[in-house]
């Protein structure tokens, strides 16, 4: 494999890792606050649809992004209502949200556009184009570093850079700010937070809404940057992969980056190579497709060290039984 091929696979890795990363950080905020969220998938899907739909109608990708975020926030609010206010089962709420998004997006798409559950293809104004970073053209000819800068680092859509910037930002919020301290505390022991005079409910809603915001960006990225429009079920399990990455990352931001890059890489390889010839064995494409899922199970089985979730995770905060 030559440098160009490697760069192309890595370039594809970055593109494919971006939605995973955003969703993974979204899950990180929510789960660090003690609210498990298997509804990442549904929120992304809803955001993908609404961003594409509004971008198609208005011709403005920014309006699309806003709509996508709003849609995702609405579902987050629903999840908050079910799991924080009404202390319902967070898993069941997440499952319901995934179904709701899967059904509603197609239903609305069909009703608005009559194109069999898609949005019209987005024209250039309705999409996030690639950004050429300063100096990319001039540096292009520099051996090795030039192509790396030009092919791999430059030329992505703005949302890719946003996603990567979210990693240090998340770290900083979590470990250097008052909000982060409280957020982590409420996921470990909500009673400690409550008795310290802080509202558990407000904190958790804040976390869930941040989760919605990030999922919204992830979904918008899928439909308006990676693709030019919405198609049915276009998230294709990315929400679940992001969850797996979150566990792999043990709920920490930098590790989330590495984990999602790994999964992105696996997807890139599976996309690029139909059957992967490893010399001694040829992996069929289905095995490549299943690899992220298999890897997740392996990770969960604890072969990579035990991942301890936030202690209060998944349990509604109930004071009075």
């Amino acid at each position, binding site marked *: 494999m030559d440098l160009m091929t490697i760069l*192309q696979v890595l*370039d594809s890795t970055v593109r494919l890792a971006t939605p995973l990363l955003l969703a993974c950080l979204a899950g990180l905020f929510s789960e660090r606050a003690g609210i498990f969220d298997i509804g990442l998938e549904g929120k992304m899907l809803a955001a993908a649809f609404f961003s594409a739909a509004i971008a198609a109608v208005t011709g403005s990708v920014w309006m699309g992004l806003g709509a996508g975020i709003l849609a995702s926030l609405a579902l987050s609010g629903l999840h908050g209502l079910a799991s924080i206010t009404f202390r319902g089962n967070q898993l069941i709420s997440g499952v319901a949200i995934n179904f709701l998004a899967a059904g509603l997006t197609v239903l609305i798409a069909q009703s608005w556009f009559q194109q069999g559950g898609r949005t019209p*293809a987005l024209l250039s104004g309705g999409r996030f184009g690639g950004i050429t970073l300063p100096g990319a053209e001039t540096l292009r000819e520099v051996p090795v570093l030039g192509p790396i800068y030009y092919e791999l680092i430059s030329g992505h859509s703005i949302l890719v850079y946003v996603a990567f910037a979210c990693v240090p930002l998340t770290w900083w919020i979590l470990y250097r700010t008052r909000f982060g301290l409280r957020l982590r505390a409420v996921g470990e022991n909500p009673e400690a937070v409550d008795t310290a005079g802080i509202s558990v409910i407000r904190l958790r809603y804040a976390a869930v809404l941040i989760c919605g915001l990030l999922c919204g960006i992830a979904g918008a990225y899928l439909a308006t940057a990676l693709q*030019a429009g919405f*198609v049915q079920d276009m998230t294709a399990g990315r929400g679940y992969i992001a969850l797996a990455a979150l566990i792999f990352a043990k709920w920490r931001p930098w590790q989330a980056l590495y984990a999602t890059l790994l999964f992105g890489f696996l997807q890139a390889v599976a996309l690029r190579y139909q059957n992967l010839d490893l010399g001694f064995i040829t992996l069929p494409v289905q095995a490549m497709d299943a690899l992220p899922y298999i890897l997740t199970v392996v990770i969960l089985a604890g072969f990579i060290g035990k991942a301890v979730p936030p202690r209060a995770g998944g349990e509604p905060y109930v004071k009075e039984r």
Partner: protein
Amino acid sequence: EPALIFDLGGKFDKSFNEAAFNGAERWAKETGGTYLETVMQSEAQREQALRRFAEAGANPIVTTGFAMSDPIAQVAPDYPDTMFVTIDGWVDLPNVKVIGFTEHEGSYLVGMMAAMASKSGTVGFIGGMDVPLIRKFACGYAQGVKAVNADANIIANMTGTTPSAWNDPVKGSELTLSQIGQGADVVYAAAGGTGVGVLQTAADESILSIGVDSNQNHLHPGKVLTSMLKRVDVAVYNVMMAGADLESGVEVLDLAAEGVGYALDENNASLVSDEMKATVDAAREKIIAGELIVHDYTSDDSCPVLTF
């Protein structure tokens, strides 16, 4: 009242199913008739859809896609008075009409155009589901390319092995980028809805693409070299016109019958030189005359110029 069942991928795939839809719409407009329709969403629904329409008295029941063969073989004997039409499929029953196309011939022509338009000498092919039918496209295309430029390099990829491969624009787009990375400057997408992603990416990356089934030149004017037309619309229109009087049997729509061809319109006029057109038309005549035989992959499951 006729009925039309679209395959997975949906009637707005801008390609195969949409061609069928257009044919039906033309019939409806011309005759003022109405027809029943539904879109398959999973393999398991096929029989139910056939039965439902047959129960409702629809006749003929037109289906698109080879995957309908088996369900039709199951259902058709239960409704001997109903005509079933399979486009791309194969069923040998007295009340089934089979319509096929010589896709390899049409692909041969667009392959020639690809080779002529390519500057790098590398062209790409992106298929949908990896089935013999799509390999037939690829093989015809490769033969056309080689006929123009024997040294040309042809990169062929399939999107997948399941029906979801017809509707995976993300993967289409990634495969296109990968082919561009390997030097391709013309890509031919024979992948149903997945092709939308291929054409989009080709346009984004400023290379030429070739559409399939429907005329897709308008999707990215000036960036789609041509489209390999497979006149599913004509087929659907014809059987709907015939209505209940439709005769069973096998019908193959070839170049001579204008069942396949390439698209030329104002969107790609600037891309197709007169010389190109002349060469391709000459080949077309030869094929119709039987002087030039394009190898059909499905005849012996092999391709002389391309390995998969």
